């Protein structure tokens, strides 16, 4: 029998003798529109967010309005099974975060309690939750100052938020905040800054009905001790070599409101490295976290230092040159060989010198010869008069000929028409 809406078949069972009300039909259309599926897809920025939240560090998401920061938070809250509380910072007054002073019967005798707002009371009652402070950068300075205490000490008025409450904030970048205040350096230093960007492919697929679902990192209980040791070695090793990086206030206009290195943010970095290691997160995720905590320059230096830590120990290589496994990337391989030569220079002995030559010969078999030239030249210069040249040196003959060839080419290059620059 013909219905009143021949073009549109309602999926919901609806008694055919009662004409569907207009709202029901529009409800059905809305239901269809919301009927989307998800597909697994790796998402480094969501992984980084999860790790920072797991490490109980306050996170600040920087992103243009409308790119799905709240959607990401909702997914995160679902995955962690935490109730989500959203507070728009810019529409609140400072007393909403520092507590509202309420005058009682005898203010001089009993004092004036600072009453917390209802959302804080509900959070404390629930005992756990994800607190999302939206629009942080458009909050007036006085509100930002009150938020400082909430973010750092987790106190709202006289209430203390339970340890299972996690805090995430979001802000619009300075370029798009029409009337924004920027974060003061002390507030900026307390956050892990994550840049939230949208991916065109993800948006197009999502609007087509398939949103990504990231599998979020989980911590491996068996790796916790190792992760802490690794994190301590990385941060202490870098700061021992570069003490200037321990504390550096942002100076340039471009770096205002962003991450900068201080003992506090290095401490946060330490936790983040440990969490990322225990979760087996990729270097890309670690890079986002570290650069978001101490800033780009110090973060990149730390990552470069961690790369160096991955190089094989020179003493191990010298102990067993035959079974040595050298890095495959050329620049890292040369760095490992340089490290070996430096170790021989530091403690010269005939057997170590021989082992280094054997190692170079092995590197010549398995990799590009041009990488060997500098280590081999340095190693040759370490020779003592009573040391005989080992047989393994023939293994690097290829490197020597490559070096000579480069020399000849260099002579030709320099003697050809002088530079046309």
């Amino acid at each position: 029998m013909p219905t009143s809406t021949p073009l549109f078949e309602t999926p919901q069972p609806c008694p055919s003798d009662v004409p569907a009300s207009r709202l029901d039909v529009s409800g059905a259309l809305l239901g269809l529109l919301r009927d989307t599926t998800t597909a697994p897809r790796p998402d480094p920025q969501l992984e980084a967010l999860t790790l920072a939240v797991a490490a109980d560090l306050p996170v600040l998401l920087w992103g243009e309005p409308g790119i799905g920061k709240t959607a990401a938070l909702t997914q995160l809250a679902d995955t962690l099974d935490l109730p989500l509380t959203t507070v728009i910072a810019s529409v609140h007054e400072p007393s909403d975060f520092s507590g509202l002073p309420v005058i009682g019967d005898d203010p001089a005798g009993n004092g004036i309690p600072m009453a917390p707002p209802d959302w804080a009371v509900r959070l404390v009652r629930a005992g756990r939750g994800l607190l999302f402070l939206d629009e942080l950068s458009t909050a007036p300075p006085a509100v930002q100052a009150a938020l400082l205490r909430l973010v750092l000490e987790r106190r709202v008025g006289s209430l203390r938020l339970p340890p299972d409450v996690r805090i995430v904030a979001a802000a619009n970048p300075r370029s798009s905040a029409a009337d924004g205040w920027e974060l003061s350096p002390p507030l900026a230093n307390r956050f892990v800054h994550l840049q939230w960007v949208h991916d065109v492919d993800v948006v197009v697929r999502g609007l087509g009905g398939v949103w990504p679902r990231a599998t979020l990192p989980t911590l491996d209980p068996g790796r916790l001790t190792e992760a802490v040791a690794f994190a301590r070695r990385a941060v202490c090793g870098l700061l021992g070599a570069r003490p200037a990086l321990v504390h550096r206030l942002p100076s340039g206009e471009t770096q205002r409101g962003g991450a900068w290195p201080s003992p506090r943010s290095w401490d946060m970095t330490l936790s983040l490295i440990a969490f990322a290691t225990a979760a087996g997160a990729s270097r890309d995720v670690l890079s986002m976290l570290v650069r978001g905590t101490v800033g780009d320059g110090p973060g990149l230096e730390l990552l470069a230092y961690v790369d160096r830590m991955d190089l094989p120990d020179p003493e191990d290589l010298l102990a067993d040159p035959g079974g040595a496994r050298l890095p495959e990337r050329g620049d890292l391989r040369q760095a490992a060989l340089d490290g070996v030569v430096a170790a021989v220079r530091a403690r010269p002995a005939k057997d170590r010198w021989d082992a280094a030559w054997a190692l170079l010969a092995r590197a010549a078999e398995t990799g590009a010869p041009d990488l060997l030239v500098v280590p081999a030249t340095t190693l040759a210069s370490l020779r003592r008069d009573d040391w005989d040249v080992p047989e393994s040196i023939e293994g690097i003959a290829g490197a020597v000929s490559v070096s000579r060839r480069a020399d000849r080419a260099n002579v030709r290059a320099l003697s050809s028409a002088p530079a046309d620059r």
Partner: protein
Amino acid sequence: MNSPSPGGRPAAPREVPGNTTGTSDAPNTPDVPDTPGTLDTDKLFAARLQAARARPYLATALFALHVVESRGVPTMAVDAHWRCYVSPAFVDRTPVEELAGVWVHEVSHLLRDHHGRSDRYAHLHELSGPAERLRMNIAADCEINDDIFGDGLVKPEGAVVPGSLGLRDGELMEDYLRQFRLGPHTAHLAWLECGSGADGLPRPWDLGPDGAYGLSRQERDAVRFRVAQGIVGRPGSAPAGWRRWAEEAFHPPQPWRQLLGAAVRAAASAPGTGEDYVYGRPARRSAAVPGAVLPSLRRRPTRVVVVIDTSGSVSDAELGSALLEVAAISRAVGGRGDLVGVLPCDAAAGRVRPLCGGAEGVELLGGGGTDLRTGFTRALETRPRPDVVVVLTDGQTPWPSRRPSCRTVVGLFGRHHGRSSYDESDPEYRPGGPPAWARVVTIG
């Protein structure tokens, strides 16, 4: 670290045995007969060594490249994952010293992120198709080739330089892209092929993001960072183009308009200037919360005085554009036109005039030497006092010895590219920069 994955590798390109790991001693390596058409790795690596000797600061990047033999490439090409595809025939017919130049050229594409910049440019201008990508490759080559050769590196045959297209040296790829079109005069460049690493367009021979030996995004950043650190640490040997790249590689210059806007806004809206919470008046919510004392938000309009350096060293065009921006910003922060004052200043300061009718009505007189100290004094004498002083200058002036009693934003006209007259007589001399108490935005 990427592990070899022989199964997922396309058949066409072949891993060069010389550059793979020693995890399994590949027995097939020595058995390959030295037939013509086999990649002469010794020659290729000799060229890389020469390139690394001629440009020590690029050694890390050169050695990080992974060589893949490929018959699909006409010469040498790179992809975004730092693989270098090499044609054996090209290596055979090219002298070592020219190959060294090609090495440096290809690695420059990657260091300068030409594939990412091409993608962003294409996205921004909605360009598509191989012809546009060829144009990007040509523009990227122009950016590289104008200063990497010479001094121990031979320019390879057929390298594109800006001059051959009638363009000026020393500009960026994006600038070149705006200045030329493909046509008969570029027909001889149609074979140009530096791979997807130069223009972002995937090539048939690319191994793709999942192929073996690619560098991850973080590894690429780490290599670029180490190269930049090497150049910044020992700037003596690197040409100016590379030094500029190194300084900007991880701190790209930001749009000065937005920075200036943010600085003026922040100065004008910071506590104590325009707006803050006060307990002097009851808050609008007081009625709803009986017994509670709440502060209320009060705002008074911000007064801005713009001091303009009108000495001879600042060009009219620079001043005009910056002045327009400042006027727009200060109106946006709530200052009405009559709350914005303009004060032209060279060695002597004039009078603060209101900016009522827009920036067109402002007369900028001057042209002599500069002493902005009188400008500061005059600006602070204005009644009512300004909350923010914005100074537009080229920085070649004495500054007040003490912090003025209001917030200060300095818009500094950029003086790089050796335009400063100070460089000629005494290259070591640098005029004292703006003092630490001012917020400084470099303009232009």
